[in-house]
């Protein structure tokens, strides 16, 4: 089974092999999305499971994430659906102090297929930075994530900052990350919480048009 092989290859951090297997899976007719979900992400999930108790990057995780990126490099171009264009703008980033970008790049990769314009601020974004970009770009949606319990509280600071500048209204805020849940999202005043990148995309596919029309009114 090619997906199992991809998972194994990511766990052992073999970039070249992961690439070959990804190519093989695509050639066998599996869709880019299924390769992404059942192979690459599943592999990285297994690594995350193994190193759950570790606080920081360990060499094996570094190797595994490189292997995953090797596979991603083949899958990504297939996911981009360039003929669909929609007048939506999304700003995204992880909050200050958080340097994990794997989840962020996955969300971006999947959300891009909705045709929205995406402004990825990357990792370690301060509340001030979030707020100033929101003010300048006037996006429809702001997505932020925090991967650590120590950084999840920064998401509230971001929302507070937006409130303070009077630009929270008309903005849909979506939060995510391992320590976050919908109760927490509610507590800090965010609009939605989603468990993974696929959930976000399903939501956007169904609601993006609505969000845009609500804003322009």
């Amino acid at each position, binding site marked *: 089974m090619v997906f199992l092989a991809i998972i194994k290859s990511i766990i052992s*951090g073999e970039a070249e092999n992961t690439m070959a297997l990804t190519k093989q899976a695509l050639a066998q007719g599996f869709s880019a999305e299924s390769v992404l979900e059942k192979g690459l992400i599943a592999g990285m999930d297994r690594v995350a499971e193994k190193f759950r108790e570790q606080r*920081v990057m360990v060499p094996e*995780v*570094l190797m595994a994430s490189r292997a995953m990126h090797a596979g991603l490099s083949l899958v990504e171009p297939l996911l981009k659906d360039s003929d669909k264009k929609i007048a939506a703008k999304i700003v995204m980033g992880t909050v200050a102090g958080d340097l994990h970008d794997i989840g962020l790049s996955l969300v971006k990769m999947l959300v891009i297929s909705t045709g929205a314009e995406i402004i990825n601020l990357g990792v370690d974004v301060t509340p001030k930075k979030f707020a100033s970009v929101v003010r300048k770009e006037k996006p429809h949606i702001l997505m932020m994530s925090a991967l650590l*319990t120590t950084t999840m509280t920064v998401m*509230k600071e971001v929302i507070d900052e937006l409130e303070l500048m009077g630009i929270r209204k008309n903005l849909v805020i979506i939060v995510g990350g391992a320590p976050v849940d919908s*109760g927490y999202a509610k507590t800090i005043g965010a609009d939605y919480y989603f468990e993974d990148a696929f959930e976000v995309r399903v939501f956007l596919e169904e609601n993006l048009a609505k969000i845009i029309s609500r804003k322009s009114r």
Partner: protein
Amino acid sequence: MRKTFEANLLDPNYLEEILGSFHNATGLHIEAINNEGATFSVLGELERSDFCRYIRCQPEGEKKCQDSYKRASLEAAKWEEPYFFRCHAGLVIWAVPITIQGVSRGSIICGQVLMWEPDHFFFQELKKLNVGIKNFEELKSKACKLEVVSPARSQAAADMLFVVVNHIVKRNINSLAEIDATRLQQQQIRREIEERKRKNLPDISDYDTYLKKERKFLRYIRLGDRTRANQTLQSLLTDLYTKTVGDLETVKVRILELATLTSRAAVEGGANAERIMMHLKEFNKEIEGIERVEKFFYKIQHIVETFLEGIFTLADKKHLAIVKNARDFIMEHYALPLTVADVAEHLFVSTSHLSRLFREELDCTINDYLTRVRVEQAVEMMKKPEFSVAQVSKAVGFQNQSYFSKVFRKYIGVTPLIYKNSLY
């Protein structure tokens, strides 16, 4: 004055000497950087690799390297342990924090290696990371000369360096232990949240639920049920963390309340009042000036543990199992017409022996304990409006309702009916 103080803690010559030996032993490149990412000392062999020198002489090259190091150094300082990363040019590097008296002074940067043979994908990455480079083929050939170090070896090197650096800055073991405790706390919160998400438990975001859980926790304390008490406490702390969004002031108030409530519950559970109040006083002093939520959590867990120990004076460990089993048996069968003989028979010990153990370990008779369990359960059941007092009395194992009322009043202060009416 300050300078000499620091010099005593971190002797630069000594640092260079030891790290130089480290370099000679392992062949790995090391340099010391400050918090801005600027190198203040390259140890051992003075040259960086061809690859690094080439990258650094590109336009803005020095600055990019410095930025990479600065960020890694910040991370390492934040986690207070070695941090592995890939620099802007694609190499594997790890930063080992130098922390003196809780203040970060920069890092030791080690590595500048690869963790894999340069392969097709690596060149692809290299190209993407180094877009502005003039002569890519040259960079490629320099990359091929980089040393390849296995993950296991680099982890070992990082661990070694960490120990060495901590030794040099005379880091004391206590502060490391405390860092571990805070970290454990973060992990527990995280695990708890993940667990909840997995089980699809409802979100807890109101104080109503929180206070209910608090009461449940205090009940477990009074009954000396350590396992359930600890579980409930962890869950309470997680609620508190998400509810307050980590706000220090609120957390502090809640923690103080919780400690006070727990102390009273422990005394009701049979702990020595004098001793408990002394512990509480110390606790209140200790948590003054704490600036991290995790530390509050760590302290409250610690004091709860101390209180629980007060309930069981763990004098004779081998007898403790019998008492514990007896308690478990009572917890499971309190609804039945239970006698001391039933409990003793279940545990294959004589009634007099069991009674003596109970008196020694819990400072109460078996019947006292059984009654306490029944009353606690009754309080819990009363919260459900559908049960009448008579039903509750029966359900928790009282044969006679007027006796139940009498006992209830003795423990709670009011009759069951008044108590029940006060709830609605």
